């Protein structure tokens, strides 16, 4: 009945066809609805569409790309600047939270982790609208800042780059906290003892042991914040003004409002190309293989 089953060190079976039977449904779905759409987006980016209601026709129209760059260079630059600022801000806020939960959480660790996730059970748009209320001109925060003189009488919080960056930071914060927590939680407690024996000062132990070992989490978290932040248009729409439009806003507007599909497709392609280059350089610098 039971044939002898060969397994390798991880307990995996050598097989030729069975794994593919399991993989095929998912792979087909991804190829049909992720990889093929990328191809059709690329085709669209080289198509021409002379008027709003014309049917786009493929024609190696590389001019779409030069037009995308020359017209929307500012939005590209702004998107990546805002996303970088939001990533750094999220790192600064998330690290202490993850650190305290991992090392001081004790038996309340899971409860504290739950607390980090709970705010994100409300919808993304509703949270951003709530920030609009908090930062708004009739809110209490602006009054306080006016009273203590941090803001001049005519200065506002809402509809500024700071508000947009703040919104981006907030909305993607759990994606920073969770990976950092995971990498801190994995640290062998004996290493911490060794650190205490070797370095009399806690700060040196922190710098030499904890920070290097948490880098994979920082790496994963930064990408998980940077990528969605760079492509977002909701925060800029609710919390910003006409001068804070990001590349996502332009793609959305060109696609869904102006129906200028070729330009929107070219913009999307340039955007994804820049993101890939940033990710590649970044993974070289920090040198971690495991993203997921």
């Amino acid at each position, binding site marked *: 009945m039971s044939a002898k089953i060969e397994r390798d060190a991880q307990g*995996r079976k050598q097989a030729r066809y069975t794994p593919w039977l399991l993989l095929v449904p*998912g792979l087909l779905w991804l190829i049909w609805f992720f990889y093929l759409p990328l191809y059709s987006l690329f085709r669209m980016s080289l198509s021409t569409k002379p008027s709003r209601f014309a049917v786009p026709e493929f024609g190696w129209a590389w001019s779409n790309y030069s037009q995308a760059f020359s017209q929307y260079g500012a939005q590209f630059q702004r998107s990546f600047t805002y996303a970088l600022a939001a990533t750094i801000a999220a790192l600064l806020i998330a690290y202490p939270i993850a650190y305290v939960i991992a090392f001081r959480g004790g038996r309340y660790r899971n409860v504290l982790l739950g607390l980090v996730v709970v705010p994100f059970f409300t919808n993304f748009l509703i949270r951003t609208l709530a920030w609009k209320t908090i930062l708004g001109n009739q809110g209490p925060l602006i009054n306080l800042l006016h009273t203590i003189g941090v803001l001049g009488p005519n200065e506002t919080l809402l509809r500024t780059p700071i508000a947009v960056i703040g919104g981006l930071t907030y909305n993607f914060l759990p994606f920073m906290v969770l990976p950092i927590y995971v990498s801190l939680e994995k640290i062998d407690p004996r290493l911490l003892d060794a650190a205490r024996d070797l370095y009399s000062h806690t700060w040196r132990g922190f710098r030499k042991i904890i920070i290097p070992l948490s880098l994979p989490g920082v790496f994963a978290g930064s990408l998980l914040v940077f990528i969605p932040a760079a492509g977002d248009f909701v925060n800029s729409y609710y919390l910003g003004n006409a001068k804070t439009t990001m590349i996502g806003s332009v793609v959305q507007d060109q696609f869904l409002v102006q129906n200028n599909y070729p330009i929107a497709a070219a913009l999307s392609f340039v955007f994804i190309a820049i993101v890939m280059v940033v990710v590649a350089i970044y993974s070289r610098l920090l040198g971690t293989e495991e993203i997921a």
Partner: protein
Amino acid sequence: MSAVVGGAKKQREQYGTVTSPAGKLGRFIINLFAAGGLLYLFLPIFVIVAFSFNQPVGRFNAVWNRFTFDNWLHPFADQALVDALLLSLKVALLSTAVATVIGTFMAIGLVRYRFKGGGLVNFLLVLPLTAPEIVLGASLLTLFLAPTMLLFNISFSLGFATIVIAHIMFLVSYVALTVRARLRGFDWTLEDAAMDLGANPTRTFWRVTLPLITPGILAAALLSFALSIDDFIITYFVSGPSTTTFPVRIFGQSRTATPPQINVLSTMILLVSISILAIGTLVSARRTKRDSA
């Protein structure tokens, strides 16, 4: 064994317990930062819950006017919003079910077997997660708008089906990677044991493998459901003019009005989610207790 683990845990909790004044100050500062961070996380939530009790002036529920129970007495007053929420639930249930099944298959295929091409499959699986949502939405829309010869010109009309297709697409990778992470370290020789005891492969899967990997699958399904119901950007691209999910409805409506029912329904969703989370934590805590006893 368990005593050693317990001892290690105790020591870990003590890390950073230093007596020097500088160390104490550092410890205080980092605790303060973490508490501030949690407060920052909850600030908008307090606002959302508080404004569900607000009597708005005009059409926008953005400025505090006065306390009222009216919104909670009529939580379903905005019919279009309720319809949108029901549609979101339908989309989330269907896409979670499909994505969980095919994603789990992929995870099992990847973890259980060694075969040529595994690295490539892995790459194909991770790439969608690194693509910005706006690109996912835009590329799917071009596919749906301009069917290619490659697919025998199958055409799609934007609506319920295209939303579900899109959601399954971005959920599959999440499910496959979450379940795969949980399957690593799974003792596959248990299957051999079952078969040695006379169970056929089908029975082995249903009676041995599935019960053991169920917690991982359940976690992936919950994550998928949450991601699906919250998704705005991709859905906004592929939903078309007449099909409106909860987030799309809020975005479309927010230009002209924000009824307080948005806050009431959000608070309800929040309460339900917290309850599910609390029950899950309690059950797993009890299980750990039972297992270690």
